[in-house]
């Protein structure tokens, strides 16, 4: 039996797929932590290097800050660096260089290993599934995998992902807190060396430094207002109460005993604490004169997302593996299934990577405030959407888009007329069709530039021509009353050729007999058009209508090149508005929310069309 040969192999395959899924989750978790540890080492090395250069800094200060984890290599090391064992950072004169290598901070306790809970869950899941597979191999062959096994596998993965996520989250938090504390300590050391407080913060290369007054307007540049406000609020509450706690608790294993100078400065160092602001956790340290703030691990995206994605992917893998194992008893079906999947994988991968993925990402972004370069998107829930509902400019853009869309029926009417007029195979007709079709395959940018000049008030061929003809001039693009209409005319000109070709294909599909029958029945040209052509083109008309409306809702190139939404927002259409919101004003969350609203509008319009058509088909 063929199936008998393949069965064990596929059973094992399912188990291997499950193992791979679990491993994927764990690898992602470990990867997050590793990159965070490297990041922390980088930050520390940067601080140490800055400290080195500070007056009173040098080797003592660096060792004071980092203890045994720092390796300092002088220029005599030949500039080759301290080797691959740790993150290295150059300090001192650019050439020759002093190298400060910082080993990643050691993780403490049992967390050093991979997340125990996660591994335990993974192992348990694997054991159960493997046991079942082994039992199955000996016992009577069942044709189906029980649902319970599939659920168990996916559940194991989900649990593993959750456990690994929690573990990673905790690790990252403690890492970032430790790094922030190191930053504060660097300031402390610099202060002890007699450096200016502001210098000290700067030297520590902390992204944010703040004068103690917190409301001095000239110095607010370094810290977002929300963070400043949060620090100001927290310094009353948290810091004052912890004033007795006068030293930063550093990693006990690594912090050397404070030197005398440090002890002196330590009195001036109040306490590190955290502040939640702008969607991220800021680790703040305060001395008498200065606040320093450092972003925590939120600087990179939360591990939860990556782990959830890995978990989902792993779950899919398991489902696929079990499905294949289930088909083992039907080798021909299995072969076909495998071949089909094999053929589908490239296309599916492309869709996931370039369509589905970005789509979900934009949905996620639309729930946040994000400027692309923000350390972390700030979660807003549906605030972006709510704000859009009362955003006048946005609705004006939607209104302009809807108005612009009115060019579609006009274009279709013209295209249909042209399609009928230019049917046939005569040379002149073929050339006419080609000429009419050309705008549809020409770059929008090129079309827009040419039309922009044609329609120029001052030098435009059209304006000048009209003036010569004594018809006066039209402010094609420079008046809010005419600009959108001008764009609509160009829009018509652009799509008519394509629509015409589609209509001709539709016309060719209408049997000549219908026209003959109608002629014999006494129908004239208009009646034949009305009773034969239009009904015969129904589906073509609908197709062109829907695709043109969708295309019209997505109009961008024309506006971008010709009017940039002006004059006075008269041609500000939805997609251009979204583009500006994202790339000019860097409001990606808003822009994503707009995109989704636009999608809903287009989807609703299309859906209504389909419903309408279905209803007519059902009743007609």
């Amino acid at each position, binding site marked *: 039996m063929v199936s008998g040969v393949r069965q064990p192999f596929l059973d094992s395959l399912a188990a291997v797929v499950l193992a791979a899924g679990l491993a994927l989750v764990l690898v992602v978790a470990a990867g997050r932590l590793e990159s965070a540890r490297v990041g922390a080492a980088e930050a520390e090395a940067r601080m140490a290097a800055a400290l080195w250069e500070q007056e009173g800094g040098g080797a003592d200060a660096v060792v004071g800050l980092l203890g045994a984890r720092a390796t300092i290599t002088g220029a005599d090391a030949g500039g080759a660096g301290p080797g691959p064992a740790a993150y290295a950072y150059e300090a001192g004169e650019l050439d020759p260089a002093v190298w400060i290598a910082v080993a990643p901070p050691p993780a403490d306790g049992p967390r050093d290993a991979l997340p125990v809970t996660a591994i335990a869950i993974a192992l348990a899941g694997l054991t159960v599934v493997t046991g079942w597979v082994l039992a199955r191999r000996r016992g009577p062959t069942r044709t189906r995998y029980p649902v319970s096994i599939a659920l168990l596998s996916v559940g194991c993965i989900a649990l593993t992902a959750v456990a690994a996520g929690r573990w990673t989250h905790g690790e990252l938090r403690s890492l970032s807190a430790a790094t922030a504390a190191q930053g504060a300590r660097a300031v402390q050391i610099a202060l002890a060396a007699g450096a200016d407080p502001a210098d000290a913060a700067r030297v520590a290369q902390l992204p944010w430094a703040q004068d103690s007054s917190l409301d001095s307007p000239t110095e607010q540049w370094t810290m977002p207002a929300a963070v400043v406000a949060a620090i100001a609020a927290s310094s009353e509450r948290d810091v004052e109460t912890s004033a007795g706690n006068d030293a930063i608790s550093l990693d006990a294993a690594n912090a050397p005993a404070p030197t005398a100078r440090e002890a002196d400065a330590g009195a001036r160092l109040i306490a590190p604490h955290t502040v939640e602001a702008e969607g991220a956790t800021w680790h703040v340290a305060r001395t008498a004169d200065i606040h320093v703030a450092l972003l925590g691990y939120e600087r990179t995206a939360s591990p939860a997302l990556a782990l959830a994605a890995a978990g989902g992917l792993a779950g899919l893998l398991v489902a696929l593996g079990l499905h294949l194992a289930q088909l083992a008893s039907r080798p021909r079906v299995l072969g076909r299934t495998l071949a089909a999947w094999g053929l589908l994988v490239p296309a599916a991968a492309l869709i996931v990577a370039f369509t589905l993925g970005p789509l979900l990402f934009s949905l996620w972004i639309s729930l946040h405030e994000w400027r692309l370069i923000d350390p972390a998107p700030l979660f807003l829930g549906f605030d972006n959407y709510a704000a859009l509902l009362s955003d006048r400019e946005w609705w004006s853009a939607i209104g302009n888009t809807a108005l612009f869309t009115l060019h579609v029926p006009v274009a279709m009417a013209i295209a249909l007329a042209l399609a009928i007029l230019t049917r046939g195979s005569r040379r002149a007709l073929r050339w006419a069709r080609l000429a009419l079709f050309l705008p549809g395959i020409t770059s929008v940018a090129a079309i827009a530039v040419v039309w922009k000049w044609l329609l120029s008030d001052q030098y435009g061929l059209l304006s000048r021509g009209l003036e010569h003809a004594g018809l006066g001039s039209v402010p094609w693009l420079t008046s809010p009353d005419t600009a959108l209409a001008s764009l609509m005319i160009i829009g018509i000109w652009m799509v008519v050729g394509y629509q015409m070709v589609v209509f001709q294909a539709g016309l060719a599909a209408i*049997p000549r*007999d*219908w026209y*003959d*029958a*109608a*002629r*014999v*029945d*006494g*129908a*004239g040209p208009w*009646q034949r058009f009305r*009773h*034969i052509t239009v*009904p*015969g083109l*129904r589906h073509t008309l609908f197709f062109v209508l829907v695709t043109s409306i969708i295309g019209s809702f997505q109009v961008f190139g024309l506006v971008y090149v010709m009017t940039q939404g002006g004059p006075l927002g008269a041609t500000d259409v939805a997609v251009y508005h979204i583009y500006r919101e994202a790339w000019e004003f860097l409001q990606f969350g808003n822009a994503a929310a707009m995109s989704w609203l636009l999608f809903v509008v287009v989807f609703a319009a299309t859906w209504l069309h389909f419903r309408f058509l279905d209803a007519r088909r059902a009743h*007609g």
Partner: protein
Amino acid sequence: MGSVSRAGQGVVLRGVEKRFGDVVALEPMDLEVRPGELMVLVGPSGCGKSTLLRLIAGLEESTSGEVWIGGRRVDEVEPGARDVAMVFQSYALYPHMTVARNLGFGLRMRGTPRAELEQRVAETAAALGLGELLERKPGQLSGGQRQRVALGRAMVRDPGVFLFDEPLSNLDAELRLRTRDEIAALHRRLGTTMIFVTHDQVEALSLGQRVAVMDRGRLQQVGTPAEVYRRPGNLFVAGFVGSPPINRIPLFRDDRGRLAGGPFVLAAPSSLSRATLAVRPEDLAVAGPGEADGDASGGSTRTGDFRATVLRVEALGSEQRVHLDGPGIAAWVARASPALRVASGDRVSVSVDWERSHLFGPDGRRQEGVPRPAEQGVSR
């Protein structure tokens, strides 16, 4: 139906010719269809019969010549005004209209008052048994039902001439027979002129009062079914009409001036250098191997005209078709009574009913007079 029927219109073609560029679709021809007559245009595909019908309908314009319908020259008249109705092979029902609207379309186009329109549609539908289907669309009908709607659409307008463009070819065999009868009955009932195009000679012979056989854009013969069958005007008509097809053998003039070919030598000296002898299968008499003489139904007392080997016997129940083999007569078929006992491989003696055999000259034209065999032309 009587209320809507009226006498048919005559159709006359005079020197009608149709060319598409350099391609001649119809050579100049004359044809007269008498009022109330059912004329069938028959011929192989591409013979121009459909073009001719479309010329009459006005769907094509003739290159030259005149078309007269009901005593009126209609070359410049739109199809809708020619007082003709047409049934298409594809039926050409309007797919987005209900049966009722399909039926009424022509009347609507002519501005018929609503009440009259509805009444006539209802009558037609009743006559054709379409009453239940009036609100359906063509897509929801069976092939036969669609065919009836197409028929109804022509009938409802009560035209002077019905034009049928192969209306039966999309039906299965049984339905085709039934519909053929219905059309014949319809013609009897309405008495309207009908021109019926088909490529099926059986259909043509069974339906037509007169049959016009066409080939390669040329009218080959016009006549009653019997004339066309019994006195084919040329070799093409002889070969096209009749099933199984007529048996043929080419004859050449021998040194004594007689036409000879295969087992045959004709009696009379001929001026023709060559000719074709054609004999319908039923005009051959086969004598079984056990019988001394051929059973010549023509009353000939001679022994068989030739001997042949039986290749195959088709027993069709009511008759037998005996496929013969012999020099010059390979693929000849004879019709025989079911009582004849022959089997493949038998040597049989075959007699020709010379009274009913045909001789065609080198140009394919019928040679008048009955061919006679020379006396010594006995089997070899």
